[in-house]
């Protein structure tokens, strides 16, 4: 019984494919079109699929190459619908060849594409086809689910033929479950629609199934009537397959009704037809009917012969069925295996994914933490560097001030004033004092500044040298030369940066020379630097070295520090050179050339 149902599915399946594609084209004209028109476009894809569809039932293996080509062109031209259609056709071909596994695989791929495309009609046909596979695997729940989905869409889109297919397929599942009462209303509804549509093939198939249903319900008379009706339609449309099936069934029902003549007639007619078409399953049925008829006629020789033939054919059918059953089991096993493998793969991937995720999060946390630690450490180092530098700046500023306002200078000046007063030289004492206070005030004011103009600095240094000159009883003379390309009002230098060297020259070079001496200060511009020279014609360093008290070198050290700070801040290359010269001492200093504007 089951193989009969299976054939029935196949009818519908064939119809589905052709209906979507070139329904009216014949195989030859399709093949011609393929030869004539070789452009790899959507038209060719459609033609290929139609050609393949035509071959589904007759030559499924050769149909495969057409579907394959359609699939390739669809992928090349990125025509998703073509791809889905080609996949469905391939699925049909595998289904017909009983390769359910591959069929299902292709249907599902096609379904995914059509869902993505939002093509509900295509999706519904695929649902129907997947339903066939479930029905074959006796997974009736799933089959019904798919068929119902197919039917719902057919109703929504008002597609009568598909409604008929849906209704019929659902009914067949119920018949297969031997739940005839549930199935009959579907068939009756389908029959009504088929009559409306005037579709003889559908009518024949549905009536055949109705007859089967009533037979199941033991309403033999009604069953017989339906079989006769099916027979009539099958004859009129020339469908020998349905005709044979109907004749055999008529024979069987007549035996049940005890009408052996009618049974014999039907059986013989079915046998000759099935022999003509070479349909083994129907031959087996026909021989069964005849064997029972002969047995009843007490024709034991013929009865035995018929029975033997029936058994032999049945066995071969059963073998086929067994093979199919085995294939089904294998497939189920295969599917389960694949499902398990897939589940395992998913689980594994999930695990790997989780692993990666955990790893990534951990790495990120570590990275962030590491960065923060690094940043904090770096900031601390940077902070320390800055604070160290600031400390150095502050310290140097203070020391610079102290070196300019050094106690030696202060008390020596005061001492000189006191000396002048005792000698009653009030005029000089007064002049000394005023200059001293002016210088002191200026030093205090300018000590806050980083830069002053060369003009202001020159005034300060001259004031300083005037004071020292007064103290040395005018034994000291000086010249101060600034090159014309240095604009004294706008050019900046650190306040009193040359003072320690002037002080050195006075104290260690000139003061020790009885006849006095001269200090020459020059400033020149070059290479983005001011070249300052303090030169004296004093006794020189060689004589002073042994009695150096360390204070003078302190002044130089402070000046070096100030210059270093400036070099760091301004990224310049200032430097100091101390040179012994013939009859005197020379200091060369390079300080960055800075303009106010």
């Amino acid at each position, binding site marked *: 019984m089951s193989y009969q149902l299976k054939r029935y599915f196949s009818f519908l399946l064939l119809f589905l494919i052709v209906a979507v594609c070139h329904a009216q084209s014949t195989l030859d004209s399709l093949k011609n079109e393929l030869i004539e028109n070789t452009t790899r476009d959507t038209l060719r894809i459609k033609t290929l699929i139609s050609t393949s569809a035509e071959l589904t039932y007759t030559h499924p293996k050769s149909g495969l190459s057409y579907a394959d080509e359609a699939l390739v062109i669809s992928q090349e031209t990125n025509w998703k619908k073509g791809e889905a259609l080609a996949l469905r056709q391939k699925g049909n071909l595998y289904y017909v060849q009983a390769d359910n596994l591959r069929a299902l695989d292709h249907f599902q791929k096609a379904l995914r594409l059509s869902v993505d495309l939002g093509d509900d009609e295509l999706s519904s046909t695929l649902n129907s086809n997947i339903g066939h596979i479930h029905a074959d695997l006796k997974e009736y729940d799933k089959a019904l689910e798919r068929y119902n989905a197919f039917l719902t869409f057919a109703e929504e889109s008002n597609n009568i033929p598909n409604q008929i297919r849906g209704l019929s397929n659902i009914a067949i599942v119920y018949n297969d479950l031997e739940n005839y009462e549930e199935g009959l209303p579907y068939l009756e509804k389908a029959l009504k629609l088929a009559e409306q549509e005037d579709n003889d093939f559908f009518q024949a198939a549905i009536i055949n199934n109705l007859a089967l249903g009533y037979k199941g319900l033991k309403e033999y008379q009604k069953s017989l009537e339906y079989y006769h009706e099916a027979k009539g339609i099958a004859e009129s449309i020339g469908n020998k397959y349905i005709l044979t099936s109907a004749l055999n069934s008529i024979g069987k029902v007549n035996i049940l009704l005890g009408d052996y003549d009618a049974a014999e007639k039907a059986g013989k007619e079915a046998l000759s037809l099935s022999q003509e078409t070479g349909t083994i399953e129907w031959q087996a049925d026909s021989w069964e009917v005849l064997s029972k008829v002969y047995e009843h006629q007490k024709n034991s020789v013929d009865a035995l012969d018929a029975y033997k033939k029936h058994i032999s054919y049945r066995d071969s059918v059963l073998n086929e069925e067994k093979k199919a059953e085995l294939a089904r089991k294998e497939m189920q096993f295969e599917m389960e295996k694949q499902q398990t493998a897939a589940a395992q793969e998913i689980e594994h991937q999930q695990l790997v994914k989780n692993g990666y995720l955990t790893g990534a999060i951990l790495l990120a946390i570590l990275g962030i933490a590491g960065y923060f630690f690094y940043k904090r450490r770096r900031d601390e180092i940077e902070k320390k560097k800055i604070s160290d530098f600031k400390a150095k700046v502050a310290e140097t500023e203070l020391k610079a001030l102290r070196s300019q306002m050094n106690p030696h200078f202060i008390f020596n000046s005061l001492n000189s004033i006191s000396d002048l007063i005792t000698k009653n030289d009030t005029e000089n004492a007064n002049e000394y*004092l005023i200059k001293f206070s002016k210088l002191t005030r200026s030093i205090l004011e300018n000590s806050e500044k980083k830069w002053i103009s060369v003009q202001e600095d020159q005034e300060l240094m001259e004031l300083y040298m005037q004071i020292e000159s007064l103290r040395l009883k005018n034994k000291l003379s000086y010249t101060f030369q600034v090159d014309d390309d240095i604009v004294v009002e*706008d050019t900046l230098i650190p306040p009193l940066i040359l003072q320690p060297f002037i002080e050195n020259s006075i104290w260690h070079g000139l003061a020790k020379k009885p006849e006095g001496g001269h200090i020459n200060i020059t400033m020149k511009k070059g290479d983005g630097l001011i070249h300052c020279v303090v030169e004296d014609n004093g006794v020189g360093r060689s004589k002073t070295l042994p009695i150096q008290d360390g204070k003078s070198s302190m002044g130089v050290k402070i000046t070096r520090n100030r210059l270093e700070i400036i070099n760091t801040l301004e990224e310049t290359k200032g430097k100091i050179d101390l040179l012994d010269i013939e009859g005197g001492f020379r200091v060369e200093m390079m300080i960055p050339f800075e*303009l106010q*504007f």
Partner: protein
Amino acid sequence: MLKAIIIDDEQHCIDRLQLLLGNHSETIQVLGSYSSVEVGKKEIDRLKPDVVFLDIQLNEDTGFDLLSQFERIDFEVIFTTAFDNYAIQAFKFSALDYLLKPIAEDDLEQAVKKLIKQTGLRDTSQRIETLFHNFKREIGHSKKLAIPTMEGLVMVDVDKIIRLQSDVNYTHIFIATNTKITTSKTLKFFEEILDPQQFFRTHKSHLVNLKYVVSYIKGKGGYVVLSNGSKLEVAVRRKDLLLQKLKTI
């Protein structure tokens, strides 16, 4: 002949000033010297001097306490101080004269020359008022600047100054009320006394109130555009510092 009195709490300072003023006996006559605010006030009222040499620190009081007791000051004031940068800044702001101790002879000579020139104008009250105004420390309080001009003293709200421009030894001051004042003070003088947070030397010849900068135009040094529409060149070396200042405003 100018009548002068000296108010100082240290006798040696009085002595020295008296000694130095002796050199100017044909123009200045010292009527007396006093050492407290109380006596000083009384004697000024009695003697009505033309000029008062006033020490800032007078025991527990200050010279400002003395001045604040007068409703109208119709005498010239020359402050004497040893070292007080804050006060000196304020004097410069109010165009008041001052002498630094120990007083240098040539500084006094300059001051006396100025006195002879100025007597008769007598805008001391105004300048002292400006001084006191500037001492007030109130939020949103704008200082006043006393600017000596050919016509006399002009008091200008510092916040109303848009910019200052040097012109050899003169300075043109552009005020928000669309007026221009020209003074014989140098731009450097104003740069030194005006708040460096508010006024920025963009160029050798320009001192700009940053409050009035509306935009900066990129260039080698670039330009600043002020709210009165003037477009001023920025010196290359001042560019970075200017942009830094503009950002912090």
